[in-house]
């Protein structure tokens, strides 16, 4: 990993007991595009802004929400390339579990293993922490679940959460709107309204992405046509 001058860990404690690199990583996340997730009684929805740097970018080629397994999906706020690496590692861990036990990996186990990888990058030499926070949405035998994983490697289960630029407004909005017995379609409407709160410009099916999983235990990203339908319902 380079010569001995760089073999110390960048995440060494500061006198105030903080790990400064992780704080900076959280700042990187906080300036990323807003993403959010809502756990309904019969499923989970995750959504994100998809603001592209120029109108010349082919937006159909960009997909921010990804599958980790057929029944677990993930979205991020922060650095896209770091997200790609984590998705690759998580997918491999999920497949290894499947190969060993011939059983799909439970959501909590995958989140735990991914968080362990993220933590390793805060305690190794010559590496930097990941500049992403993840929202993992899954449906397994324990029902619908939503987890957030931070650059430090800590993870939390949420009923509804948001990350990125507009996090405080979004969370306040979600706190007001969230109900325990919400169904998946209501949750999708609420997710769209929450994204609209801090959105610069007009929300359309070309600049947001939505992924959902219901009791059928299949995670998928909605097509632009489906997003248009939901947007019409919200108006």
């Amino acid at each position, binding site marked *: 990993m380079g010569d001995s001058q760089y073999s110390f860990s960048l995440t060494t404690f500061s006198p105030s007991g903080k790990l400064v690199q992780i704080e900076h990583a959280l700042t990187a996340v906080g300036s990323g595009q807003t993403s959010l997730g809502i756990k309904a009684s019969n499923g989970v929805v995750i959504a994100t802004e998809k603001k592209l740097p120029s109108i010349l970018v082919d937006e159909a080629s960009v997909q921010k929400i990804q599958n980790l397994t057929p029944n677990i999906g993930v979205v991020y706020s922060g650095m896209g390339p770091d997200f790609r690496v984590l998705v690759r590692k998580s997918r491999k861990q999920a497949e290894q579990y499947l*190969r*060993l036990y011939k059983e799909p990996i439970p959501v*909590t186990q995958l989140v735990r293993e991914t968080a362990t990888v993220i933590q390793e990058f805060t305690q190794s030499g010559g590496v930097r922490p990941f500049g992403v926070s993840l929202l993992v949405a899954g449906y397994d035998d324990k029902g619908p679940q939503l987890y957030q994983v931070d650059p430090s490697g800590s993870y939390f289960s949420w009923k509804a959460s948001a990350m990125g630029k507009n996090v405080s407004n979004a969370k306040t909005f979600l706190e007001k709107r969230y109900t325990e017995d919400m169904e998946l379609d209501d949750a999708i409407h609420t997710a769209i309204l929450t994204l609209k709160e801090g959105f610069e410009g007009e929300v359309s099916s070309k600049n947001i992405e939505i992924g959902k999983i219901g009791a059928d235990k299949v995670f998928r990203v909605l097509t632009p046509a489906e997003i248009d339908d939901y947007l019409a319902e919200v108006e």
Partner: protein
Amino acid sequence: MSIFQYNGSAVVAMVGKNCFAIASDRRLGVQLQTIATDFQRISKIHDHLFIGLSGLATDVQTLEGYQRLVFRHKLYQLREERDMKPETFASLVSAILYEKRFGPYLCQPVIAGLGEDDKPFICTMDSIGAKELAKDFVVSGTASESLYGASEAMYKPDMEADELFETISQALLSSVDRDCLSGWGGHVYVVTPNEIKERILKGRMD
């Protein structure tokens, strides 16, 4: 003499109505000499999952009691906060055996458990992890050929726990009587959703 016949063994498992039974002999020998008459071949993984191993005794002990299998399941229980399903455990055993494909553990497992909705599950595999599922009974060990015959003749589907106990005990004792390397009694577990009955059989002590 083949290495699988060095210690001598007999293991059989049978499916009943919402219950299963797993039984083994108790002899530990070194070729023709008997050196123990209370050898444990069957281990409990959890209340509804048992594994019996036939073959080389050192590998039986290594896989079951001390290393690998009970250890792996305990870790799984701590991490996932639940017991392993029998099918999952069978896949795990198969993977562990195949890891040693070119220097294998010299034993053949027999796995028996109650799965979801208390449906009985049994399977056996060879020493490198090729699974063989069955709906009625599975056998393994030096007495396996006699066990196949006796079980085939005596087995009926949907037996209750007591009748299953009688059937598996008779099948085991009559089979080990035709095999000089296994015997010296029997060890039978009959497992229903609510209880585990462990019994020792007294057979021909030779």
